[in-house]
């Protein structure tokens, strides 16, 4: 049985809200042999109800905003959001475009911001490991409350 002092393996969910695909292919590099984040216990899952960490890439387009909110709401607590890349963090070059709301934090709360255009896998690893620590903290806090 897992106690609250154990570190568990979070499952990740990836959603593209309008990115140029640059960060997405770096996320795929992250899942594959050279960078391989499975060594931190993370695997990519397609189902939001199984996911603990949401990796979002790209500025949020108007059509994606409602879908992103729904996905976020579907994920079980405690959950974490990692904004991957400059566009997801701030909206970067797309700020002011007519169909873009801005960064991910204009729609849902973000816990970790990963810089870079496109963000390099090394930085992404730092980002998700930071998210892993935050997730474990959140989990412990929730258990204390319960």
């Amino acid at each position: 049985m897992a106690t609250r002092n154990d570190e568990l393996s979070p499952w990740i969910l990836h959603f593209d809200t309008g990115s140029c695909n640059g960060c997405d292919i770096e996320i795929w590099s992250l899942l594959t042999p050279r960078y391989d984040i499975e060594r931190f216990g993370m695997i990519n899952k397609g189902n939001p109800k199984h996911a603990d960490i949401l990796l979002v890439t790209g500025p949020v387009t108007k059509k994606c905003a409602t879908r992103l909110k729904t996905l976020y709401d579907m994920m079980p607590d405690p959950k974490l959001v990692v904004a991957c890349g400059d566009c997801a963090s701030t909206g970067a070059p797309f700020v002011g475009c007519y169909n873009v709301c801005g960064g991910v934090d204009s729609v849902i709360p973000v816990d970790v911001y990963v810089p870079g255009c496109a963000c390099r896998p090394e930085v992404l690893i730092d980002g998700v490991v930071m998210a892993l620590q935050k997730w474990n903290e959140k989990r412990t806090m929730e258990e204390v409350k319960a």
Partner: protein
Amino acid sequence: MSIHANDGAIEKIAERQSLENVRLATIITVDKGDGNLELIYVLDVNGALTSINCEFPQDQELASLSSVFAGAENMEREIIDLMGIRFEGIRGGLFLEPGSSIIAPLRKQPLGVK
């Protein structure tokens, strides 16, 4: 049977298509700024690009090319969204989200929010 500004262009394309190896590359629209819009059909004829232009007032409805090329339908849907041109028998809603996106953003004067 109504008459459209681009009937001549479509006829020309259909005629060339029956004779030669023709592929519709893209459809380009340009806002001239004086109330007129320009439509450019870009064709690949035996490996070389040719264009067929036509100009028309911005509130006119146009005929669709989708009976000649099925691939033209999406291009026309894109134009409906981004340029606010109407095509007979084609509906928009390809790119823009009703309620939040602006209408015809590529016009010199966009038409406001849906």
